[in-house]
């Protein structure tokens, strides 16, 4: 992970900004249009003048038309609460060595966190399964966020839904939420987990990372495969037809997630783990409108 994060990479990250389709209440002044009416540049609304209001904001044009006093309201720019949820289950630890999914997930999480922090946003990193949900604010938190994410290792299997619920309970202020996982679990669990986030009004971006082996499953004959998380075993002796069927089933699984996300306004990005973090951050996410 150290190799990807060169000084030039960080400088490039500083140019990026996390985009949101919605406005969220922030906790302090920031760079995002928030729902709060206050001081800002963008006109938001009128409201009747009450004693004590700043009379410099009286809209005399409206008074001329209506002979009533109205105050001009502006959208206040506040910080965005960015949540980065990283799946650290055992399945993310594959493949071992090159193109490891967790490695890419950590790089993405660090990059997104860096972008958010340099933009003055508040970043909360939820490491599913780690029982740790640190919150980072301000540029000084850059090194801490990097260190925190870098130290993450895969843990034993857990219930994705339960962990999402636990993480969400720590997030008081909704905002942008990046969920980084391989989503290789039951559809019902995926759906209920994302619904938890939707219910909290997060703008969700799903970054699904799959390894090249998962995308194109190859096996020698007579293998006994063991699930890294559950320990479940499946005897394999796959022929060509079976491999084709596997590809179809995987495609169907990914497609279902895509469609669910699409229907529910969630951005879904399928990322092969052999893709570099630079490609994702600087090319794919901006093209999808996640970053600008």
């Amino acid at each position, binding site marked *: 992970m150290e190799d990807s994060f060169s000084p030039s990479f960080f400088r490039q990250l500083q140019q990026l900004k996390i985009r949101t389709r919605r406005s969220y209440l922030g906790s302090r002044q920031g760079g995002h249009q928030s729902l709060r009416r206050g001081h800002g540049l963008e006109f938001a609304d009128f409201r009747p003048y009450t004693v004590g209001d700043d009379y410099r904001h009286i809209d005399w044009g409206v008074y001329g038309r209506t002979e009533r006093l109205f105050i001009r309201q502006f959208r206040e720019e506040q910080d965005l609460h960015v949540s980065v949820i990283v799946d650290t289950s*055992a*399945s*993310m*630890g*594959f*493949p071992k060595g090159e193109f490891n*999914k967790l490695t890419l997930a950590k790089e993405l999480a660090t990059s997104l966190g860096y972008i958010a922090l340099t933009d003055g946003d508040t970043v909360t990193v939820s490491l599913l399964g780690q029982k740790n949900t640190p919150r980072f604010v301000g540029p000084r938190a850059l090194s801490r966020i990097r260190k925190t994410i870098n130290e993450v290792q895969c843990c034993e299997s857990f219930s994705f839904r339960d962990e999402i619920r636990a993480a969400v309970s720590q997030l008081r202020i909704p905002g942008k939420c990046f969920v980084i996982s*391989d989503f*290789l*679990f*039951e559809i019902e669990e995926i759906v209920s987990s994302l619904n938890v986030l939707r219910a909290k009004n997060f703008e969700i971006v799903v970054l699904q990372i799959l*390894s090249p*082996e*998962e995308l194109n*499953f190859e*096996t*020698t*004959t*007579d*293998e*006994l*495969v*063991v*699930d*890294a*998380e*559950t320990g*479940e*075993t*499946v*005897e*394999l*002796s*796959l*022929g060509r*037809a*079976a491999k084709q*069927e*596997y590809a179809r*089933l*995987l495609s169907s*699984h990914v497609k279902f997630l895509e469609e669910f996300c699409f229907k529910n306004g969630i951005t879904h990005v399928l990322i092969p783990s052999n893709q570099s973090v630079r490609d994702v951050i600087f090319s794919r996410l901006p093209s999808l409108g996640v970053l600008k």
Partner: protein
Amino acid sequence: MFSELFFGNLAAFSLLAIAPLLALAYLRKENRKKTIVSSVLILRALPKQQFRKRKIKLPLRFFLELLALLLLMLAAARPIYTSPGERVAILVDNSLSMGALNGGTTSRFEEGIKSLKSWFNEESSLSRYDFFVSSPTLELKGKSLSRREVISELNNLKPVYATDNIERGIKSILSEDDFDSLIVVTDRPVAISDENYEPPIPVNVLQVGKPEANMFIAQIKTEITSAKRRTIIAVVGNANTDETSATVNLYGTHFGLKNNNIEETLLFSKDVSIPAQSTVDATFALPNTLGDLNVFKATIETSSSNALSADDSAWLTFERSGETTVLLVTPRSSTNALGLGDINALSIKAISPEEYGKLSEDEIKDFRAIIFDRSAPKKLPHVSSLLLIPPRENGIFPITNEIKNPKITSWDNNHLITSYLKIPLLSPQASLVFDVPSWSQSIINSQKGSLMVAGESEGLRFATTGFSLLPFEGRKTPVESILTLNVLSWLTGNKKLSEDYLTGTIRILENANSWTVRLPSGETVSLTSGEDSLAKLALKTPGAYALAKGGSNDYQLFVANSLFPEESDTFREYPFNFSSFSNLNVDNTAKISKSSNSNTFWQAIVWLAILMLLIELSLRTVLPLLRLKKGVS
């Protein structure tokens, strides 16, 4: 013609049942490549028919272990490779000593039969067997028998009251040249003193029995003391390393041809103590009046180890009048008159030639016969005489030559002297050769001349032998002994002249068409003689016999005893020597062996199985090390 391979232990093939279990164990073992994947979510959703049939792959180690198992099973099945159609001679020693108990439980005979039956398991089922027993003489019990038939014969066989004659039996069988191999079951060990001797066929000796302590009656005899008192002396032997005590009992009975009551009455008992490997005389002085007692039996009782009971009794009967008196003239010191004292119904007096020279004519005439041993009278006595190895200057039978190891070429088998004798079994080491006087005839001839001459002159009978017949050793030298008795019988005309009859012998009954015999059991049988053959009475059991011609009431009483010291001495081994067969003059490479487990190769199979397991072990241990080394490098 092909050789036969068969198995001595078919039950070992049941080990084959382990083979599928071994395969199952390997198949169940997770020896397929195990791969941990991130998730089997998609894989488990694949329909079952998408999976190819799993190839059953068993590692090399499985095949090595299976091969080792099969080899061990094969070795346990005891494969035996043998040539079919062998003609095998089986000689079973059924002599008296084979009845000795080993450790008080089973007899040597039973152990021998058991060994023989085990030996059969390793023999080809196609072989045929001629089954012989050694005692009392070599007898063919069955010809060209199958294994099953031999075993049936074995089950009906028991030791007899006789000595073994093993050497003669083996010699006779080997000389037949009809067999592919010979197996001998005996309690006598083999002593091969001639390393260069090789028998014509393989000879396997199954030796059974170990030294066992035994008490026995070595001899029973009667004497008249100086006080004219009849005594019976039972010579008791102790074949043991320790001094042993025993009680000797003397019984008397009246044994006749027809009397119903043949119960024995205890007359005397005497406790004796016998030193180890020694004999002691138990002497019983009989009362002057014996009533009608005519048969006496001595028995021994002991609480010590006594392996053989068949030799614990001996019988005696004696003629109370008409004993034959014979004079023995010999320059040799004579203990027991050079053995002649053992001959029943013979009263012997031994003197030196000088003492003979001092006897008067009347004194000489008191004797029924005179035996001149290595001496000769100056003139022909008026008593029938036997000259044994006379000096050259004897005036009766001229001597022409002297030869060593004479070969007997012919004999007069019509003469009473040679009757019922196997003259060729005589093998004197040296002999004088006689010129046959005109009044006599040659009885036994050699390539150089007559070795024995006999004739009659003026009512007197004279005979001479160029080889020694003394000392008289009885059963130890049966041919010579019977020749001696025949000569004495011929000289004295006393047909009742005999030593103790031994069990196992056959009495030839002459000059009558039928005989009535009462056996020791009390049973009475009739024997008849054919036109060209004489009636024969086999003395199978010890005890008293009463013999009468036809329906006559006049019977002859005699006893038969099983007194064989070499058989009774079960504490000592009496090895039989193969070197004595060297005159068979055969040239071959067969060897004598003491065990019969030939033609089996199970040991080689076991070594092969061990080799398989070693290879498997090395694969199990060395290969992973090599892989590790490869991985590290």
